[in-house]
């Protein structure tokens, strides 16, 4: 990935807090959240962490019998795989990771107080995803508990990015992923 297209890996606390405040203050979160730039930026990999990917496929899981199966068909996914890995040769790093986006419906279906709660990003296991430009008006929740491996051979052909985060929304996702993976359980207190 070209250096000029690369966002800083870790941020100081003040900068992170400022990013989150930008999102919290936004009247129109969707417009602040998503990049309006052309998705086909030759300097970047075809897919980046935080992209919304369109791919209709069953969500693979191991069921209660311990055997592989699929749950419902998912239409949209959120990329949680590292952008750097998506930039490496596919024969070296053939996989990336996605989590399914659960469709919560329109703002009217969800109700204002619940929507407002989701926009606070104060839950471990899910990440609120607002409607994106060019998509429908539905709100979604990324389910961190159901990650899926995607072969990168499908990237750009069967699995296409339809929305890309701006820097501060990506920082927010990054923070929520860290928080989810490193949740303290108090066992060594």
């Amino acid at each position, binding site marked *: 990935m070209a250096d000029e297209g690369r966002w800083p*890996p*870790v*941020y*100081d*606390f003040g900068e*992170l*807090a400022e990013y*989150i405040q930008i999102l919290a203050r936004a009247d129109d979160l969707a417009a602040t959240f998503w990049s309006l730039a052309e998705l086909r930026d030759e300097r970047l990999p075809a897919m980046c962490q935080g992209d919304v990917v369109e791919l209709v496929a*069953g969500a*693979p*899981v191991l*069921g*209660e019998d311990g*055997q*592989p*199966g*699929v*749950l*419902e068909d998912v239409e949209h996914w959120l990329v949680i795989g590292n952008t750097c890995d998506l930039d490496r040769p596919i024969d070296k790093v053939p996989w990336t990771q996605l989590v399914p986006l*659960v469709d*919560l419906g329109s703002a009217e279906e969800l109700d204002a107080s*619940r929507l407002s*709660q*989701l926009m*606070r*990003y*104060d*839950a*471990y*296991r*899910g990440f609120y995803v607002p409607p994106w430009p060019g998509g429908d008006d539905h709100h979604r*929740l990324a*389910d961190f*508990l159901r990650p899926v491996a995607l072969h990168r051979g499908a990237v750009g052909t069967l699995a296409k990015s339809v929305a890309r985060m701006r820097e501060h929304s990506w920082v*927010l996702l990054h*923070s*929520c992923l*860290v*928080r989810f993976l*490193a949740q*303290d359980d108090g066992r*060594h*207190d």
Partner: protein
Amino acid sequence: MAEKLMASGYAGLTVGETRMPQRIGYSITGSAGTPLPSDVRPAPVFETGTGRLEPIPGPAEVVRTAGTLIREAAVLPTTEEGNELVDELLSKHTQGLVVRPLERRLKK
């Protein structure tokens, strides 16, 4: 910070009959990869004198240190209300869904 720092601690390490003074040191272990935030100090480890670095005895302190750093780095607090809502929405969505077995490809 361009370089990663690894802390090495000497906390009353006994060598033979001589008790060495307690000391925390830092050494550069690499210059690539994700740097630590500028105001984050690495967790202390023991340098055993054999070149091996070991966590300080009792993992609780290391875990607490890491937990504190992560909580501060993530900045975002969680709330009971927020977790309950997300859990409800996600479980409502998957409730009643049946795990369909994968179609097995027929062997020729």
